[in-house]
């Protein structure tokens, strides 16, 4: 058992996983989630998927948001269902699941010839995506709470058939630290 604990923790690198709302404190989350599957099962918008072995032995079977399947409207059902308090109370006005990040390589609006796609700008329920001077989308970090609606509707994949990549042009990705109220905090990774 001791060996198992050590091996699971240190030998199989655990990749950051996007947790359902209230599961952002990863240390607390991984200490308390008993992989019961209730949060995944209850989500009415089906945005909770399940992490598997590729996410590390430690994360396998824990819940993971997949915004290709749905988005989150912060209905809190998963938080209510969680029997261990692994998912804590969540305030979508002050916290985030993680911020949305635009990949300019993939985004249709950022293509030299392309452009015109306004889906995420129009779609964001929190008006967190505005336009720059050339009408291209920009995420307002003090408004985005990572609901994933933009990722859910982003058509970049279906227009660019060439790649076979699953990633969409706007994604909500784990491990960008907590949300700091009222600030345009620096975005790590992805954004360029």
């Amino acid at each position: 058992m001791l060996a198992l604990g050590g091996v699971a923790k240190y030998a199989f690198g655990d990749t950051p996983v996007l947790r359902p709302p209230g599961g952002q404190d990863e240390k607390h989350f991984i200490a308390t989630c008993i992989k019961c599957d209730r949060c995944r099962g209850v989500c009415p918008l089906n945005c909770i998927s399940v992490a598997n072995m590729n996410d590390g032995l430690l994360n396998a079977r824990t819940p993971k948001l997949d915004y290709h399947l749905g988005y989150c409207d912060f209905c809190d059902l998963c938080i209510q269902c969680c029997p261990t308090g692994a998912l804590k109370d969540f305030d979508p006005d002050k916290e985030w699941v993680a911020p949305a990040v635009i990949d300019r390589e993939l985004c249709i609006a950022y293509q030299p010839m392309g452009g015109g796609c306004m889906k995420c700008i129009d779609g964001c329920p929190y008006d967190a995506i505005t336009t720059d001077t050339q009408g291209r989308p920009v995420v307002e970090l003090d408004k985005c709470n990572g609901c994933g609606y933009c990722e859910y509707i982003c058509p970049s994949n279906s227009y660019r058939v060439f790649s076979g990549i699953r990633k969409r042009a706007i994604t909500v990705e784990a491990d960008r630290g907590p949300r700091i109220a009222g600030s345009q905090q620096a975005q790590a990774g992805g954004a360029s």
Partner: protein
Amino acid sequence: MKISVARKITLTLVVVVVLVSFFVNVGTGTLSSMGWEAIAYICPLGALETFLASWTFVPRALIAFILVAVGVIVLGKVFCAWLCPVPPLRKFFTFKKDTSVDDAIAASHKALKAAGATEGAIAIEGAIEPLSAEEQASLVGGSCKSGCSSCATQRKKLDSRHLVLGGALLSTAIFGFPVFCIVCPVGLTFASLLALWRLVGFNEPSWALLVFPVFLALELFVLRKWCIKFCPLGAVMSLLSIPNRLFRPHVDTKKCLRTQGIDCAVCVSVCEEELDPHCMDGMHECTKCGLCVDKCPAHAVTIPLYIAKKKQLEKTKTLAE
């Protein structure tokens, strides 16, 4: 209805509930936690692990844990026989059948026939020398002092399962996450089902589909006797069930073939917990599976709600007279 049939129905219901929660957004969960919104059963070992891993006692988890603990104290290790998918799974995938039980049953039937009685017969006057009053008294739970063979094999209160439990809890406290959950065969059973469903329904192939069943098979077939030698979940419940007094199997000594001098051991050989319902010691390990009740050729075993020790003693006295 035979108890084993009732158990099959219960387990099927559990699996159905889990499968439903795959397809409908009800969030009823798996056996790690099953319920409706905030009202839910919680795996007692899982709950303990989260307390140790996080050093927080979330009220909801604590309340659920206490309720489950009370349930186990009152009902005993019923989870093992009525809800846990592991023993049926093992049975299903064991192709070489164990014949010792059938042999024992056949032997008792043969002895019965030789004694000129039919199955279910009660006392066969004069056919066989009845046991002495002293021997009869020794058959009754609680008063057993003469050290008959059934009590010689009696299980100890603490065994290797409790060591595994200690290791799991220690490891959980050190590394800060529920360590046993990773390899829990109950969790892995449902995780395997889930992985299969994600593959079919969502085209999400993953190593899990291979790794989980392999883990599971290792536990069930390499660590044989998982339930009575290794399972830390069983260990938690065995500790909690020590005060349990309800639904303990009870042998009607008047009917039991041993009283008639037949060396019957059917109830002992069917019991997966390696208990003898004649012997009260160690009976907290009983999972109320009812195999001894179903299989006893003399229908001498019952699982009454409650049986007072005094009453048992009186019964023996009248028998002895």
